[in-house]
């Protein structure tokens, strides 16, 4: 099938993201890329666990004293919801409902931005307590792990909004459908990583 073929909801394929060779490659390649990202985050998690609560002699910061679970919980809820809304967006993409897709991706973006804002607040708060990046090995590891995730979130926001703006006028076709699909896949991945951060860093930090 050609990239520029005009579709109606009737002729639109069930899996538009895999209808072309390029689309198929993109999806397979992206799954493999995500496997690679898993190893990347695993390395960061391992380092964080090794350096948790480690600092110069007499450091007063610990995971128990520092983290605030309600805030982290609110962030988790925002990101989880945004993952759900991106599922709706892809659902509409598969049904050739461009408006619906754009709307739900828009909501995803808003939720993601909300998450990012809370994270920025959290970092700001910690640095004001004296828990700066250079304060201890614990701080360096914390900011690197959570910050790398935050960086991924902001990248996802830029990516999805670029896609939405670029395709706003021309609607769905087989050229951009895989792009939307892959961006949504990426967004889910970010969400899964956050679930692990919430568990390993915050829950196990405060309770464990």
């Amino acid at each position, binding site marked *: 099938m050609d990239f520029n073929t005009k579709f109606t909801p009737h002729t639109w394929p069930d899996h538009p993201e895999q209808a072309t060779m390029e689309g198929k490659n993109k999806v397979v*390649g992206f799954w*493999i890329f995500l496997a690679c990202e898993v190893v990347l985050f695993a390395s960061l998690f391992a*380092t964080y666990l090794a350096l948790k609560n480690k600092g110069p002699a007499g*450091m007063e910061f610990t995971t128990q004293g520092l983290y605030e679970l309600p805030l982290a919980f609110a962030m988790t809820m925002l990101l989880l919801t945004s993952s759900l809304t991106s599922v709706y967006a892809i659902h509409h993409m598969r049904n050739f409902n461009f408006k619906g897709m754009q709307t739900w991706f828009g909501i995803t973006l808003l939720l993601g931005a909300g998450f990012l804002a809370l994270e920025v607040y959290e970092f700001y708060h910690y640095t004001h307590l004296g828990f700066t*990046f*250079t304060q201890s090995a*614990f701080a*360096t590891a914390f900011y*690197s792990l959570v910050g790398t995730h935050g960086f991924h979130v902001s990248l996802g926001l830029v990516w999805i909004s670029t896609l939405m703006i670029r395709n706003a006028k021309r609607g769905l076709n087989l050229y951009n459908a895989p792009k939307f699909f892959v961006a949504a896949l990426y967004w889910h991945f970010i969400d899964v990583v956050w679930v692990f951060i919430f568990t390993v860093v915050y829950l196990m930090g405060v309770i464990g």
Partner: protein
Amino acid sequence: MSSYTQKKGFGATVWDYITTVDHKKLAVMYLLAGTLFFAIAGFEALLMRIQLMKPNNDFISAGFFNELLTMHGTTMLFLAATPLLFAFMNMLVPLQIGARDVAFPFLNSLGFWLFFLGAVFLHLSFFMGGAPDAGWTSYASLSLYSPGHGIDFYVLGLQISGAGTLISGLNFIVTIITMRAPGMTFMRMPLFTWTSMVSSSLILFAFPPLTIGLLMMLFDRMFGGNFFDHMMGGNTIIWEHLFWIFGHPEVYILVLPAFGLFSEIIPAFSRKRLFGYSSMVFATILIGFLGFMVWAHHMFTVGMGPTANAIFAVATMAIAVPTGMKVFNWILTIWGGSIKVTTPMLYALGFIPSFVAGGVTGVMQASAPLDYQLHDSYFIVAHFHYVIVGGIVTALFGSAHFYWPIFFNRMLNETLGKWTFWVFFIGFHLTFFLQHFLGLMGMPRRVFTYMDGQGWDQFNYISTVGAAMMGVGVIMMVINCLMSIKGKPAGRDPWGDGRTLEWSIPQPIPFYNFRQTPLVRGLDPWWIEKQEGNKEVTFAEPIGDIHMPNNSAIPFVISLGMFIAAFGALYNPDADKPWSIYVLIIGLAITFGAMITRSVKDDHGFHLHKEDILEIEEHLYGKGGNK
């Protein structure tokens, strides 16, 4: 559409190579770049051997020696062996599976330019205040202590070229999964394609830990991070783990494609299918898997405790089993065959005993308590050079001879090739065999000099003589390559014993590889067709439109932006260089600008129609040629 057949001027050719997404042209570029860095790193090795020729030598200063040993190791592994193997992977994998290009031609080009500019960046350190000097392993306490910008060049250069390697690895996997011709099932794939796929998967899982390790070092050195500062709660052993979680699979990343290359050469010149194909595939996957379980055998003396040491010792020994399977399968392929001793076959035959010798010393070092003596001595230097030179370099040289006609439609000179082999092979054993004994006699590795009266003088002298012979061998090889420019066109299947699809394509190979996608009817499809007396492979489709990707300059621009940004990042911590932040911003702006251009601009590729194809083929093969 005569634009396909026009002769191009020099500028246009350069532009063509900068923007190309053709896997064959990128393969040639990898080959040239890899050879360049191989020559540089080889020269560094010669300088070090001259310094060690006699005790108390002062040919090279202590600090510069450390720079040389660091750059020799880093360059050989990341910037010579990897791209040279990528050259073969790029050239052969699509041809062997019957594809017209890789899955992501654009990323293929991006991977090359990131690798190349990262490598250039790293080498500029020699002219900009000193190269990295903490060894290719760059252990954290020493690399944080090291003054100047050497280590920063290492960190940023490897980060950039590592990203390129990662991208290429991903590309190969997807290509092999999705782009196989009809009938090319997984268990009919040539073994080189198999090893390329397993090796690419290793890249995928091994490079991220390195990326993170380098990122941490970057944070520590430039932004006051504390990952490796034990006064601030950090821990340098984390670097060692991350580095070796990458570093050990890296050995298999390099050696598996080398195994694959020999698994092509040996059946071809034995005129016999590979013995135990399915167990070879199984062994490849097993080696790849076990390769991730054994990294800590590089750290037996670090003090991990007896349980960890014992586990990693036994796990490491286990790798000998699948490797042994491979060796015996190669020998049984020769057994009962019809062996033609060509230059590539000579390399394959020299490879088997040399690599086995390197492998068995590996088992010796896997014995943890014995490794306490062998670790960081010249024994280990001998061991890994037996594996890398005896395993990988022989594979590269042998396959250069074997596949030269696929790359350039020319043959290399066989007589000179055989001479080269003997000079290089004897030089290699002369250099490294005695180093086992130097290690056992108490000589630590990475020493810039040694006192006399320790019983090491004679062996070191012989070792240097051997190194000089290896140098001569490499020069002979390069001369042979240059001479081939004047040679006659080689034509299709010039060895006469080709078995796989790449030999079935008429020479020179058109840029779309296959006019019609082939139909694969079994392992070694070209051999099958030849045995049935066919002059062509069976096709899976009639002549029709071919969809090809567009060239693009964006990969080069993205990489260039990173290259520029790296200078900004490098000098950013220096108080006297306020301009560095602007360099960083400009570089990143170029990169992101190019990326956004890429995503906003549609790139649908183009279609070649039947009449274009016929015109191109008439131009390549003459009127009525190659029906």
